[in-house]
């Protein structure tokens, strides 16, 4: 593998796996050329090339944001981005992972925050420096309109910022490319937590259920199940009434003695 060919430096054919495999393509990891199978993701290509990943590898499934990668195709002025675990290699790509990028993060007490513009400006005054260049949006591997949530946050529309940023994996690519030096994803999670805590109404049914449990309503029913022998338990299990798939939200079971 890793048949290294750089300028005049060429590995002898016979010593390389490249000689027998026809599906290999060249990629340039941090400028150095490696031959890797064309169907691999960038992450697996690193491993094929001989790296044991420590940084830049978490979920391997596109959700943890550990594997932010930037790359450029030869002859192109465009910088592309992607998650290494989700992006398939392209022949001749020049790439590097950016597994960490320092971004400002405020320390705050969620209980005390209010859902207004001043709150965000207090903790993240740099919001005002956003120059609307839209680089963040163009570089987000999750295709989030990042600039839109930044401006929503700036306007004080916390809920909007929360909703737009919901699928943010906190990979940090936006922050790495922002000329105003914002840490967008930290601002975003603050908006989401304010929304979840202070803007969206609390679920009353949860409060009610907790109260019911605390009043020991279910102690006896559960005790019965704990004591039941296997036969009884199996019978109760098999005969329990199923809420139909298409039942409306306010559906109620026939037997209400155990609820």
């Amino acid at each position, binding site marked *: 593998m890793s048949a290294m060919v750089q300028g005049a430096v060429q590995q002898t054919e016979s010593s390389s796996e490249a000689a027998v495999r026809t599906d290999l393509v060249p990629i340039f990891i941090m400028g150095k050329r490696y031959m890797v199978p064309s169907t691999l993701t960038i992450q697996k290509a690193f491993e094929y090339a001989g790296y044991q990943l420590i940084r830049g*590898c978490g979920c391997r499934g596109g959700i943890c944001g550990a594997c932010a990668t930037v790359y450029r195709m030869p002859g192109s002025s465009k910088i592309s981005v992607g998650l290494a675990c989700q992006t398939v290699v392209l022949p001749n790509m020049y790439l590097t992972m950016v597994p960490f990028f320092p971004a400002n993060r405020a320390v705050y007490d969620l209980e005390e925050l209010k859902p207004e513009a001043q709150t965000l400006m207090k903790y993240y005054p740099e919001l005002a420096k956003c120059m609307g260049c839209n680089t963040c949006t163009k570089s987000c591997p999750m295709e989030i309109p990042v600039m839109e949530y930044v401006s929503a946050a700036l306007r004080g529309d916390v809920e909007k910022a929360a909703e737009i940023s919901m699928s943010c994996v906190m990979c940090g690519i936006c922050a790495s490319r922002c000329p105003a030096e914002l840490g967008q994803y930290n601002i975003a999670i603050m908006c989401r937590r304010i929304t979840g805590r202070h803007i969206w109404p609390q679920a009353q049914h949860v409060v009610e259920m907790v109260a019911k449990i605390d009043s020991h309503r279910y102690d006896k029913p559960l005790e019965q199940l704990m004591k039941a022998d296997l036969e009884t338990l199996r019978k109760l299990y098999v005969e*329990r009434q199923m*809420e139909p798939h298409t039942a409306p939200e306010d559906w109620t079971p026939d037997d209400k003695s155990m*609820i």
Partner: protein
Amino acid sequence: MGYTVELMDLIKRVEKTRPERVMKKKAGQEFPALTLDQRRDRLEKYHPDFRAGALRELRIGPSRGISVAQEIADTFEARSRVDPDQIDLNEVHYETDVLVIGGGGAGTAAALLAQEEGSRVIIATKLRHGDANTMMAEGGMQAATKSWKDSPYYHFLDVMGGGHFENDPELVRTMVTEAPKAIAWLEKLGCMFNKWPDGKMFTLHGAGTCRKRMHYAGDMTGAEIMRTLRDEARNRVKDIGVLEFSPAVELLTDEKGRCSGAVLYNLETEEYFIVKAKAVIMATGGSGRLHMSGFMTTNHYGATGDGLVMGYRLGVGVRFLHATQYHPTGAVFPEQAEGLLITEKVRGAGANLVNIDGDQFVFEREPRDIESASIIRECEKVGKGVPVPGQVGRFGVWLDSPMIDMLEGEGTVEREFPAKFILFKRYGIDISKLPMLIYPTLHYQNGGLAYEPDGSTKVEGFFVAGEVGGGVHGANRLMGNSLLDITVFGRLAGQTAGKFVKDRTGIGTLSVDHVRRYHKELEEAEIGLDRVSPMVLPDYGNPEVRKRQWTSHYVGTLR
């Protein structure tokens, strides 16, 4: 990209049977579910756990004689990375009240609660804080919160039935009664569960549930919980310190045998560090990256079962480790998405599983093990699997996601499953229009270290929380009960450890005698002397490269 021409052809058969299947679903006519006896039969014949050679009896340690997966037995029957005769326990590098091992959901919840008890906390974790299975959970979290139709009583029944009635009933009772509190706690921390405008939470069915009680945040429920807990831990930076890329590789005791800290390994500088702590909470999660029976896995990179072996050496027994959970619906196409989980909610929302002819062969809401066994049967025995392009001898079946839009209205798939929708779109597949090709994938460690409802174990000072523990799910966890498990038992373990710390006066002399004894047992049994564990990172290296690493020395999978 997208599907191959052959697959597009086969999809036509699925499209042909779809209208009728949708009609039946609308009319409430489901494919017949298996009876309990049929379930058992299907498991014994087709589930990977029952294959010859999948399990082996442990020959040493507290659970000697119990059968566990071969790959786990290998890590148990192995030497420590620490040499008891070489280690210098006098030089302590960190001191704290509570050491949490593992920065996933259970560990972070535990850290928060221990901090609330007044403890200083260190979280030592293998990768970054939050690089964990918790981050990957999609579907949701179970809790009986709707008292007009549900209660802990029914939740209890469902959990027990799913686990084949072998679960530890005390643990189950604790989990189902604490469940609504766990939801309320997460809501208070700002988790954005899907809700109606009045605050009422959306809930769905999961496999094996009799009431719709799956709470969720889009298809990123675990990520929403994980990043919220992590964010909160970061707000408490004064009391909660996090050491990333610092996996624990061995536990420490004092001369009385109480757990008193751990040895950490800095993956980047390759140094070992000693942490002295009054209480240790093990929250290292699962073990999918051990690739039981060679299956692909949905788990994150660090899921190598480290906590199991550390706890086992310390003297804590294990339960239900013979049962590995295979998630019925892992992607098998395209190759880059292989092993990736397609949440059960897709089936909960009504999508059928169909074979190469477009015919249903199993009710889509059977418990996971039954569903997986049925898919394996359809492919291996019945021979109606769909051949996976480019992979000779591999088959899958269709998960008919387009049904969801037909049942619930156009745009539902994109709205309810945004992460998977984007992912497949990247590969040129619109899952609201085309079905997904799936096969069972290694997903969850049903069993683990034995622990009590308050998180304590038989070793003083040692607590367990989350997927590393075993008992509450019996031999088969139902979807949505794990995010619940880690929140409930993470909180309880944190609380108990925090209280324990207040009463513990001091730590005596640090010791690794338990490792010495364990090594002696290994030697006497003449097993595993050439292996080391925990594994820490799986080996996905290229053997060709290794051959040329002339001067490199590997200990286990680590260089």
